[in-house]
């Protein structure tokens, strides 16, 4: 058979195109169950599975050199052809950090609605260098640092901790933790020492958006009530829910779907929608309440049959009146989102003038322990690593102090327990850290995960604190292979 040259050429490129499509299909299916995204910042490749670092003013791409991070957080998008169940991130870097920016973490966006990232430690200056004079014990990735040599092994410490709580402490709150799961750990305070009072606590300020609370029921049964107000300022549907946890177990919930007739973005406020949870079966004990809602929703007139009602880590009081709060953390982070909220606030006698919106201000308190906060008007977002309450008698903090950039290693702490894998030093003097994440529930949009690099306290706008050079980021996704999937479908 005589085939013309024209047909031969056409058959050739059709076969080539066919193999290109087969190659792309193979990459998309990833039949081996893994997918690798490797990017070196010194390479000149323009397009990559790793997106550009954003915002650009926080990360400088040097010509043929590493990525220089000057501010935090920095975001990347990471492409994957499909979902995987596990992801390993290897970062090669050189940290130039200080005591004001001792922690370098990375992670993925897990909840888009509440903007929650799942973070893992990359480099911790204190654990690597700052606690060098302390006794160090290791068991796997679990590390125990002791100011004085009291325990001979990590397992001995864990056993004493689980059985006797923090009784090994010679002073209160002597144990700080870092990246340790505390769901099965004993609370940091002795619940028997809490006052037994049957009075209800009413939180006097409306709260905007997502909040978490600790309550303590001194007898069986929970009774919670409040009102929900929808501001209808943004375009999203404003579903909400209230979840109640005992340790890591969810014990009750209330779903609050947005069935209000008012249109989103109309600015029409709905009359307060009453909410109520009555659960007479809940035994006495400590509970965590989670109010999951967007920023359009206001929770007001919150009342609960507990004499303790603490807001965990972040509070956004929504009122034009004066606000008076207490917190047990030695610092305060403040952000105003509207010009009307700009003011001079008082934190434990220290005053802070807010002059810019969307700027995060920080203020350190004069002493360790409870501090009063006075605001001329609400509508500020207040945050720290402690609790907020309307009065000191309502404040309860069952959490262990976390080793963060505000921790004082000189005085309060005697033990630090950390789940931390030290950085490895490469031959070329760069450091390398490997992070592991469960990826099945990570947020993924248009084929991309959102990766964050966080160095709390690192400010690009002249705030100092150092910098981090990133040489390369290698993201390895893994999960079920094609054969596993087929077996799963066939129930083999």
């Amino acid at each position: 058979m005589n085939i013309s040259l024209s047909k031969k050429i056409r058959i050739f490129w059709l076969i080539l195109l066919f193999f290109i499509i087969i190659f792309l299909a193979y990459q998309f299916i990833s039949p081996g169950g893994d997918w690798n995204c490797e990017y070196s910042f010194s390479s000149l490749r323009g397009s990559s599975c790793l997106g550009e670092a954003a915002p650009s003013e926080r990360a400088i791409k040097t010509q043929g050199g590493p990525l220089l991070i000057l501010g935090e957080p920095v975001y990347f998008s990471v492409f994957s052809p499909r979902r995987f169940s596990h992801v390993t991130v290897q970062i090669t870097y050189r940290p130039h950090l200080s005591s004001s920016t001792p922690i370098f973490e990375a992670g993925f966006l897990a909840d888009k609605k509440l903007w929650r990232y799942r973070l893992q430690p990359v480099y911790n200056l204190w654990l690597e260098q700052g606690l060098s004079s302390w006794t160090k014990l290791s068991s796997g990735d679990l590390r125990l640092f002791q100011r004085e040599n009291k325990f001979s092994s990590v397992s001995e410490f864990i056993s004493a901790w689980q059985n006797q709580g923090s009784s090994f402490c010679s002073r209160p709150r002597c144990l700080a933790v870092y990246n340790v799961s505390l769901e099965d750990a004993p609370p940091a305070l002795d619940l028997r020492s809490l006052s037994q009072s049957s009075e209800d606590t009413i939180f006097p300020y409306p709260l905007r958006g997502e909040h978490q609370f600790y309550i303590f029921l001194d007898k069986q049964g929970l009774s919670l009530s409040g009102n929900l107000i929808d501001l209808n300022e943004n375009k999203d549907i404003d579903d909400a829910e209230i979840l109640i946890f005992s340790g890591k177990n969810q014990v009750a919930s209330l779903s609050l779907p947005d069935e209000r007739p008012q249109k989103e973005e109309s600015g029409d406020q709905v009359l307060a929608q009453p909410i109520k949870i009555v659960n007479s079966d809940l035994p006495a004990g400590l509970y965590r309440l989670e109010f999951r809602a967007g920023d359009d929703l206001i929770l007001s007139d919150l009342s609960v049959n507990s004499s303790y009602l603490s807001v965990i880590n972040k509070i956004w009081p929504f009122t034009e009146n004066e606000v008076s709060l207490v917190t047990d953390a030695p610092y305060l982070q403040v952000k105003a989102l509207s010009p009307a909220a700009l003011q001079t606030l008082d934190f434990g006698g220290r005053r802070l003038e807010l002059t810019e919106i969307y700027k995060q201000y920080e203020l350190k308190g004069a002493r360790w322990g409870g501090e009063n906060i006075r605001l001329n008007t609400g509508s500020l977002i207040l945050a720290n690593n402690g609790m907020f309450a309307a009065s000191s008698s309502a404040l309860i903090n069952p959490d262990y102090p976390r080793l963060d950039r505000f921790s004082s290693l000189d005085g309060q702490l005697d033990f630090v327990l950390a789940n931390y894998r030290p950085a490895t030093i490469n031959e070329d003097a760069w450091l390398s850290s490997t992070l592991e994440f469960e990826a099945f529930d990570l947020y993924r949009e248009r084929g991309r995960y959102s990766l964050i690099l966080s160095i709390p306290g690192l400010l690009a706008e002249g705030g100092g604190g150092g910098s981090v050079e990133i040489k390369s980021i290698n993201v390895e996704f893994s999960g079920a292979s094609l054969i596993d999937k087929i077996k799963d479908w066939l129930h083999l």
Partner: protein
Amino acid sequence: MKKYFVSNNLYRLLARESFYFFSALLATGAVIESLLPGFFRLYFSIPVLSGFWLLSLIVSLLCIKEKK
């Protein structure tokens, strides 16, 4: 009215088939990008492919001669 025909030589043939190939590849890329944004671009440079496509188009057009 002028009439045209395509000259019968190897360059014209290669240019025409290259134009068809790059058109098909770019169309495949467009379909894949609409389904999986960024996936096709991981392996192929769109500016380079577009450049070859344009080059093959220009060469094909240059090979068209006026019929005498």
